[in-house]
């Protein structure tokens, strides 16, 4: 069977005609598609997507790199997925029942079990059942995000959704387990390419962040500094930007009163505070808990005006020059190199200032920088990039309807969605992911998935990845002679798939 493979590099669609087609759609940016530094097509797609796939390759071939990239930076809402995938997602409990109701129902069940007269063993059993329901709902959120990452045409949007969720990392524990789908789709995704300050604001006003970093418990006289500290250290200006412990405490004081309405628990507000009370969904501002004395954060004085003051501090920190540098550096680490050159960061910061922190503009500076082109293919895939890029090699007509293996392997490989317990998010550098245990896991995954096409797709397809398709041939053509030589030695189609997914070239993006 392997003798049928033709590894010679094939030319697909004419690239010259694709470039011409791209011209029109690029006009509004003033960038002719030919301006885009020509980069290796597969490497270019691999970096800007969750992994090269047949459909994305065809899109780029048709539109040209510049036009495709420009469209990626201005997605209109969420991408449309194949109908069968849309149906899977629509059928999920998280997309049918509001999260506040899920939270309420499950916590009420837990309470009634605790109060019930059953034996300790019965109670333990019932508790376990409820915990399983929590877990099932949290798996839905992970499955949903995986499916979007695999199938959405808005690949840059999906990569950034993960990037920003990792930047504003929330670990799912307790009731947060029913809230992660909402965090991904409602809180983060709409803002991933917009102004940074809007994204930051969305997280400040999210019940997920307020719960995770304990601002729900932060009140006048009972200051909880957890969230204030992480905003400064991780979310905005960054460690080393010169803030002090007093700045952290004062930021925490600014944030007092912003919390979460626990479903089923009434919030008591004294009459004199009723006018200033505010609620939007699960998020509440309770003025009775707010510290209304003036406070100084990072050299800026905030006067006690409740929500206004919180909005001011969001603008102040979200637009701070130190934030521009901190965030630009992280974007460059994700898209260029673990230690990006200062000159690139300087340019991104410059664009940040001119565009008032518009992420798409800052990214355009990055994508058009020579360092970006030079770095293509040189970033080691983290486990999620590895797993999702593997799933993206399936032919379009083979629809994944069992996501559990992907979710399980991402847990096993150490990069579970919503599974980073510390608020810093997963590390981006290769050294965190290219250890021996990780490589063993990847080889094992490759073998597992090749041997059991039915694990992801039911009814099982004959082959999971069509080695004879022009797309896979093109991909193999980009691998080294040595790798291709080894793949040709495979004894059957399953071993071929397993070797393809184990190839050194497939470990990089």
């Amino acid at each position: 069977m392997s003798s049928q493979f033709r590894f010679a590099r094939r030319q697909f669609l004419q690239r010259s005609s694709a470039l011409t087609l791209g011209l029109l759609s690029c006009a509004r940016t003033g960038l002719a598609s030919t301006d885009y530094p020509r980069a290796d097509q597969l490497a270019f797609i691999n970096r800007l997507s969750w992994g090269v796939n047949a459909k994305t390759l065809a899109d780029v071939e048709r539109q040209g790199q510049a036009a495709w990239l420009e469209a990626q930076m201005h997605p209109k809402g969420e991408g449309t997925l194949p109908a069968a995938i849309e149906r899977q997602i629509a059928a999920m409990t998280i997309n049918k029942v509001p999260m506040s109701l899920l939270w309420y129902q499950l916590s009420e069940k837990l309470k009634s079990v605790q109060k019930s007269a059953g034996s300790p063993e019965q109670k333990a059993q019932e508790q376990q059942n409820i915990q399983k329901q929590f877990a099932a709902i949290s798996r839905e959120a992970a499955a949903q995000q995986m499916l979007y990452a695999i199938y959405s045409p808005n690949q840059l949007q999906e990569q950034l959704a993960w990037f920003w969720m990792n930047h504003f990392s929330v670990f799912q524990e307790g009731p947060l387990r029913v809230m992660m789908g909402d965090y991904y789709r409602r809180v983060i995704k709409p803002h991933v390419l917009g102004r940074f300050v809007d994204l930051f604001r969305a997280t400040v006003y999210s019940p997920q962040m307020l719960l995770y970093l304990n601002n729900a418990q932060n009140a006048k006289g009972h200051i909880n500094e957890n969230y204030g500290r992480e905003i400064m250290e991780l979310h905005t200006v960054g460690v080393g930007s010169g803030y002090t412990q007093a700045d952290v405490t004062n930021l925490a004081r600014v944030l007092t009163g912003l919390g979460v309405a626990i479903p089923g628990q009434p919030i008591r507000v004294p009459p004199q505070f009723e006018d200033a009370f505010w609620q939007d969904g699960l998020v509440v501002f309770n003025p009775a808990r707010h510290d209304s004395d003036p406070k100084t954060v990072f050299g800026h004085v905030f006067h006690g005006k409740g929500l206004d003051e919180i909005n001011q501090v969001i603008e102040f920190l979200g637009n701070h020059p130190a934030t521009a540098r901190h965030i630009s550096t992280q974007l460059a680490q994700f898209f260029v190199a673990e230690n990006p050159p200062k000159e690139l960061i300087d340019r991104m910061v410059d664009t940040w200032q001119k565009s008032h922190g518009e992420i798409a503009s800052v990214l355009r500076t990055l994508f058009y920088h020579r360092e970006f082109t030079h770095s293509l293919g040189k970033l080691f895939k983290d486990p999620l990039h590895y797993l999702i890029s593997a799933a993206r090699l399936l032919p379009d007509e083979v629809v994944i309807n069992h996501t559990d293996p992907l979710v399980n392997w991402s847990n096993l490989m150490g990069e579970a969605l919503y599974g980073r317990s510390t608020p810093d998010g997963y590390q981006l550098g290769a050294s965190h992911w290219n250890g021996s245990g990780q490589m063993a896991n990847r080889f094992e995954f490759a073998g597992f998935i090749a041997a059991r096409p039915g694990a992801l797709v039911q009814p099982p397809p004959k082959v999971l990845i069509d080695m004879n398709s022009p797309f896979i041939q093109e991909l193999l053509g980009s691998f080294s002679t040595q790798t291709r030589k080894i793949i040709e030695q495979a004894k059957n189609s399953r071993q071929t798939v397993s070797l393809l997914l184990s190839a050194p070239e497939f470990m990089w993006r």
Partner: protein
Amino acid sequence: MNRRQFLQTTIASCIGLAAYNSRVWAASPSNGNPRFLLIFLRGGYDSANLLVPYSSDLYYQGRPNIAVPKPSEPNGALELNSDWALHPSLKDTVLPLYQRQQAAFVPFAGTADLSRSHFETQDHIELGQGAHTRDFNSGFLNRLAAVLHDRARSIAFTNQLPLSMQGKVRIANQPVVGKIQSMNEAQRQLLEQMYQHSSLAPTVRTAFTTQQQVTEDMAQMASNGYVAEMIAASRGAINPSGFQAAAAKIGVLMRDHYNLGFMDLGGWDTHINQTGVTGAEGQLANKFAELGAGLAVLPDTMGKAWNETVVVVISEFGRTFRENGNRGTDHGHGSTYWVLGGGVHGGKIVGEQVALSEKTLNQNRDWPVLTDYRGLLGGLFKRLWGLTPAELQQVFPDAKPADLQLV
């Protein structure tokens, strides 16, 4: 107990001083081949039901439903001295080790972190940094491996590299719970060839070597009938994919290949129904039994190497001294750490102690921390590997090693 004083630390230390100078370790790295295994009980185990302060009235008042009965009562705790007794589920496993002076307990141990958050406290412990630094990419076991340099052969027996082992030194991880997968020889050869020109070639070779070592050791154990014998001896009580089987694998791997290991066990967050009719039975008792059974196989599997091994069992915090309304306990502070090993000067309860009363409890809620884990572990590392003060500062910045005369 509230009326009596415990052993004075000073007395405990004096006993240790002269008697054990000639035991396995001198403070010189050239002697022997010390091994250290850290077992982390994630979830904050209820240490007051492990090392039971049975002379304390407050203990029995505060735990009307979940206390472990006194040693004099049926199914009672196992008396260790006039104040402390061990959970009865450890009668055939850890008690004999204690009696052979190969196990010691350190009550009132823990960290200064008072957040009572699992994750914050676990991270705090695993990072083990000074008060003013928080680098999420520098765990204390990784810093220890860095200090030991080529003397360290480190491994995590977990699915993922724990925070304590993350950092500059590249440390392998190899899970030992359940079946260990081994790749067939043909596939392995193809993969090695595939990677021969790749920068990842050494990593891939390490992956296969580790896997091969583990599977060969396991095969050897199986052919010796060791695992089968162990499972038979337990009359079916031992789950072959449980901790006892894992511990046997760890024992062999630490005996033959590694000297710095990490393992963790979850499921200790017993907010509800932690016991049966009394604290002697139920969920927590079963957990102790499984842990004890695992620890007890180490001397046999490790053979002579057990004499050079120190195992420390820790947890992020203890739990409330009084039971809650659900026959469980909530997040507390001070815990009890276990120190085991063939060369450990055990058979005693060590470290500073206080009589338990409403006043001596931390916030009248849980145990105070009187022995900082960094001092305890730093002191052990110092003795095991003859670390200099500068090296110890690298492992645990701003911490003073405590000499509890355990090794």
